[in-house]
């Protein structure tokens, strides 16, 4: 698309959308929302970028290799967090039992592994949405 106004406004808004996505991911355990909603917002900011500025530019920002790696390691991150329990001698995916510090309720760092898992899932969801978009767009052209 060649619309000047659209491009300027997108340049102003999209960074905030991106940051808002991260905000929703990181505050999933103290407020409504969570890793999935946040991940979708984060992914949509990249999708909006590529629709407005063209798929090639979007691809330049997020090459295929990076997407494959985030996808694989985002899912792997979840399994790894589950392994913490096994390493500590308690069942898979344990949190409080594994002796993780749960922190002060309401703080950003509370919840032990929950916020860490949430971050991984959020980034993973974002990369999935972007991959789906790119795959379908490139088939189109």
């Amino acid at each position, binding site marked *: 698309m060649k619309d000047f106004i659209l491009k300027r406004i997108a340049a102003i808004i999209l960074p905030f959308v991106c940051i808002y996505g991260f905000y929703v991911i990181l505050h*999933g*355990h*103290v*407020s*409504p929302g*969570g*890793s999935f909603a946040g991940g979708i917002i984060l992914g949509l900011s990249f999708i909006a970028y590529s629709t407005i500025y063209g798929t090639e530019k979007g691809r330049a920002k997020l090459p295929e290799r990076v997407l494959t790696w985030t*996808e694989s390691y*985002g*899912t792997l991150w*979840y*399994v790894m967090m*589950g392994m913490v329990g096994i390493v500590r001698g308690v069942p*898979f*995916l344990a*949190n*409080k039992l594994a002796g993780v510090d*749960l*922190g002060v*309720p*309401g703080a950003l760092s*509370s*919840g*032990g592994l*929950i916020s860490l*898992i*949430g971050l991984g*899932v959020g980034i*993973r*969801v974002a990369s*999935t949405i972007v*991959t*789906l978009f790119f*795959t*379908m767009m*490139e*088939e189109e052209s």
Partner: protein
Amino acid sequence: MKIKNILILLVVLLATYGILMAVAELPPYGMPDNPVHNQVSERYINEALEDTGVLNMVTAIVLDYRAYDTMFETIVLFTATLAVVITLKSWKKEGER
């Protein structure tokens, strides 16, 4: 084709009637003494903070009490991505070769 559609419509209407009979029998909507509000949900509501340290109970369930489900949920997404890619993308390359 028309006759088949009408038959399907009849079957679906019959099924709707049956399902409505059952749905009318469900516990009344929105009452606090329904069977779903049993010791399971009470524990989630009263002890989620102590058990997991998070304020949002839905997050506590999704990422701690039932984290195993959520692991498979991310795996569903992973599967879907792979299936989409294997259906669309590299297939084109094969076709060109």
